[in-house]
């Protein structure tokens, strides 16, 4: 679309990030040492953050690093250290054949569907429809009254978003979507978080003898 995107460098970076994410995830489910598995889980999260950057979701990549790598991995490592049982190892429960079959069938179904479904993607849309391409990449230059022009005007209304399309300054747009179109899920999820926090505190509280 713009910049390095579409070049070989992005492809190579994407495949490296994907290979790291998949290899680290495989190590999480195969390593016997749970502590090392947790470290490889953090590596897998980091690689997924790299994939997010390549998919032009920079805000999500930062959130991924902050919450998954920064908070969830550390929480998992804390739990592993608190639970003395773990040196016993990361063992199978004897159902690995069934689980492997289910997982392989699932992967086969998803990959078959992904490669056989007919997605019109944005890039071919941008090639076929000048207005759509301009609105998505922000290269719109002329033509008041054509439909894409309104999009550019909308983009110009937020200062930094001008001339760069919908994905360029997505943080502000995500914020606006959150408090306009998705305000009810936003409030619901904040109550979910509050309930989870109180629930976790209540579960973990030491019970004093009466």
């Amino acid at each position: 679309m713009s910049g390095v995107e579409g070049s070989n460098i992005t492809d190579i970076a994407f495949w490296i990030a994907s290979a790291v994410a998949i290899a680290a995830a495989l190590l999480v489910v195969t390593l016997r040492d749970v502590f090392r598995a947790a470290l490889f889980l953090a590596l897998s999260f980091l690689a997924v953050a790299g994939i997010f950057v390549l998919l032009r979701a920079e805000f999500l990549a930062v959130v991924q690093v902050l919450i998954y790598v920064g908070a969830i991995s550390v929480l998992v490592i804390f739990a592993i250290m608190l639970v003395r049982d773990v040196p016993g190892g990361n063992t199978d429960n004897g159902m690995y054949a069934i689980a492997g079959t289910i997982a392989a069938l699932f992967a086969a179904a998803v990959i078959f569907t992904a490669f056989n479904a007919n997605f019109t993607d944005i890039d071919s849309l941008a090639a076929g429809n000048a207005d759509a391409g301009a609105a998505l990449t922000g290269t719109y230059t002329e033509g008041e009254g054509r439909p894409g022009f309104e999009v550019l005007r909308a983009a110009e209304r937020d200062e930094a978003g001008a001339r760069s399309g919908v994905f360029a300054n997505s943080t502000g747009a995500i914020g606006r979507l959150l408090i306009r179109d998705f305000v009810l899920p936003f409030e619901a999820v904040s109550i979910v978080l509050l309930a989870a926090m109180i629930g976790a505190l209540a579960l973990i509280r030491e019970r004093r003898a009466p």
Partner: protein
Amino acid sequence: MSLENVLLVSGILFAIGLYGSLAKRSAIVVLMSIEIMFNAVNVAAIGFSRYTLPQQLTRSPLEVTADAVHAALTGQLFAVFVITVAAAEVALGLALVIAVYRSRQTVEVTDLNSMRG
């Protein structure tokens, strides 16, 4: 790098997480596998957000309006919600694991069968 490749990576990651959550004995590893599955779903959502517009599903001649283009970010918004729920889930899950460890001195899901009839 196309939508198909992104979905390929996402499907493989989800399958690894599915295998781990079904086949592992330690509750902590099961939680870690569930986190891998959340990540796979986020990759798919963000891939769809990057490569398609939501209105393509409902209107065959795509009208390019400001709303249609800004709706392209809906997939990223879904990922925000998934991350929030994943954070809540892992906090509660690890609290449960530690509470169970306190009372039963084990975190292995195969040992937690007191509800078996």
